[in-house]
């Protein structure tokens, strides 16, 4: 315990967890429209679970995935079909559906053994398209492009229905996902992932089984995405193929990169930053923008997304978490810091 988390103040973590569970009550006390904020936070929570997995795959192992919305779709549709059409209890579906999404990750991992970089990005992008199309093709179960109504989650005899209850369900799993993600990143597996990212040849020479760990990365990432998919399907109560667009996959990668690739906290920060910006900040600007341009809000939103992404890559490749680390070091050394190092 001591050696593994030497550089962290662990006593902050319980405080953060308590804060996460107190947040709905604080919001309720502060604002009348707390239900909307909870809805936004729920969405952010689902994306955080997925992005922790995506970060393990793309940030830690360096295997770019442009098709993670496909894994989300697999998890969501599997769980919806299992629970509503085969009568599997929700608690069991929470275990089965992520595993199936993980198996899909395993299948996509096969080409990853031979190809890297941009080719892998293209393959996963193709996977996203294929999943979307296959969902439409199996229309006896999925109702094609018309979408599918999903029942609310049932756990221990309680039906979880409102945004308020969903918040507690989702954030319990968010906390578990972040802790598990941290544990994986700091374990032998995580170090093997980072070695593969830095140099495949060197990793292989050091005795790391490349194919095993690459498949494992895809499997783990698929499980996280499938988990997010199950929660997405049952808390939003309606899913259709439009929810799992190629643009969503790109936004996931943007969230991970803006937060700072190869740090789990970075994935969390980036997701919160982008989702809150998208849902709370852009609507505030909407009236202003409509005054100047006669256009849809979606265009402005994607313009802002694109610009943020672009500026981050060029000026701050370490992301938000990197900025935070730099600031921390800056203040630690405060009066005696060499100026040039912190530009």
């Amino acid at each position: 315990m001591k050696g593994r988390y030497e550089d962290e103040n662990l006593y902050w973590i319980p405080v953060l967890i308590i804060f996460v569970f107190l947040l709905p009550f604080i919001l309720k006390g502060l604002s009348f429209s707390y239900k909307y904020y909870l809805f936004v936070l729920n969405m952010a929570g689902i994306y955080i679970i997925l992005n922790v997995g995506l970060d393990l795959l793309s940030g830690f192992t360096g295997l770019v995935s442009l098709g993670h919305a496909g894994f989300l779709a697999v998890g969501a549709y599997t769980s919806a079909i299992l629970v509503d059409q085969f009568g599997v209890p929700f608690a069991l579906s929470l275990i089965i559906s992520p595993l199936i999404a993980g198996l899909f990750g395993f299948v996509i991992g096969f080409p990853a053994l031979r190809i890297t970089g941009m080719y892998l990005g293209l393959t996963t992008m193709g996977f996203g398209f294929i999943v979307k199309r296959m969902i439409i093709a199996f229309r006896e179960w999925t109702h094609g492009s018309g979408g599918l109504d999903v029942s609310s989650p049932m756990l221990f005899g309680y039906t979880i229905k409102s945004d308020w209850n969903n918040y507690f369900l989702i954030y319990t799993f968010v906390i578990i996902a972040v802790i598990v993600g941290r544990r994986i990143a700091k374990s032998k597996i995580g170090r093997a992932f980072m070695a593969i990212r830095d140099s495949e040849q060197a990793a292989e020479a050091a005795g790391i089984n490349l194919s095993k760990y690459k498949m494992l990365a895809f499997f783990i990432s698929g499980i996280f995405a499938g988990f997010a998919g199950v929660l997405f399907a049952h808390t939003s109560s309606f899913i259709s193929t439009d929810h799992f667009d190629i643009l969503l996959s790109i936004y996931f990668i943007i969230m991970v990169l803006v937060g700072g690739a190869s740090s789990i906290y970075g994935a969390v920060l980036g997701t919160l930053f982008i989702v809150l910006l998208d849902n709370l900040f852009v609507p505030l600007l909407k009236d202003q923008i409509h005054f100047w341009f006669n256009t849809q809000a979606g265009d402005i939103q994607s313009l802002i997304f694109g610009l943020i992404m672009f500026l981050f890559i060029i000026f701050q490749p370490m992301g938000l978490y990197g900025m935070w680390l730099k600031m921390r070091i800056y203040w630690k050394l405060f009066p005696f810091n060499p100026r040039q190092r912190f530009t």
Partner: protein
Amino acid sequence: MTDLFSGLTQEIISGIALGSIYALIALGFTMIFKATEVVNFAQGELMMVGAYVNFFFVTTFLSAAGTPTAWTFLVALGGSMIFSVLFGYILDFIINRPLKDQPIFSIIMATLSLAIIIRAVVAIIAGPISLMPFSPFGDSTVTFGNIVVSLLDLSIIGSAIGLVIIFYYIFHYTRWGIAMQATSEDPIAAQLMGIPIKRVYALVWIFSAIVATISGILLAPRIALLDTTMGFLGLKAFPAAVLGGFGSIPGAIVGGVILGVIETVSMGTLSFHFQWIKEINDIIPWIVLIAVLMIKPNGLFGVEKVKKV
């Protein structure tokens, strides 16, 4: 039987026309990839911008002159060419120079975000309504026996062949073309030989923007609809390039044509005879891509690269 045959021939010719456009898009980013190792995911968006700019030139001239003549389209083409030269130069400045030595992950994401930005800016300027582009040839067709081919398709095939010949000439017989080849072979050695590689890179981006603009101008009347989703068609050129072997110019052309033919034939005759083909029509390029990458990752014309430590 003759009916099936003539229908198939017609589909293949139409497929070659569609494939020529894929080939041109693939040619655009293959050039960039060869010279600068940057994979430009925004190539489809460059195409879209070209189509939009050409559309606005044509409509301006039409409102000035009244009736459309051949000159309207030629002058609009010239205007779009000048625009694409400027656009390519600007892109070199904002994409290529800052990202030259970044890891591949950052480059992919930067060009993807550029694609998002371009799409949003075009949607803001041009409005959300899709436009109806003008075709210089109207609906006129040419008939060989019982095969009917639209003049537009023929012009697409013709201009694609013409462009490829021009670029072949430029690459192999001009000073700047040979400088480009040298730069893509080994940038440092080229620089030591006195080649201004920054200007060569700018030139490559300008060429690529020109090719993208031309493919946009050719594609817009063919799909008879112009809106911002046209950029997504550019993504289909990636399977084409991979099929031919990424980074090989003949490969890009052959791969594009093959994929175009597969797409039209599967949409037409095959869907008619096999019901299940209809379900997978629009993902055929991606299935081809995954199959190629699993069986022969270097494509038809690619050269295997040995990775050094």
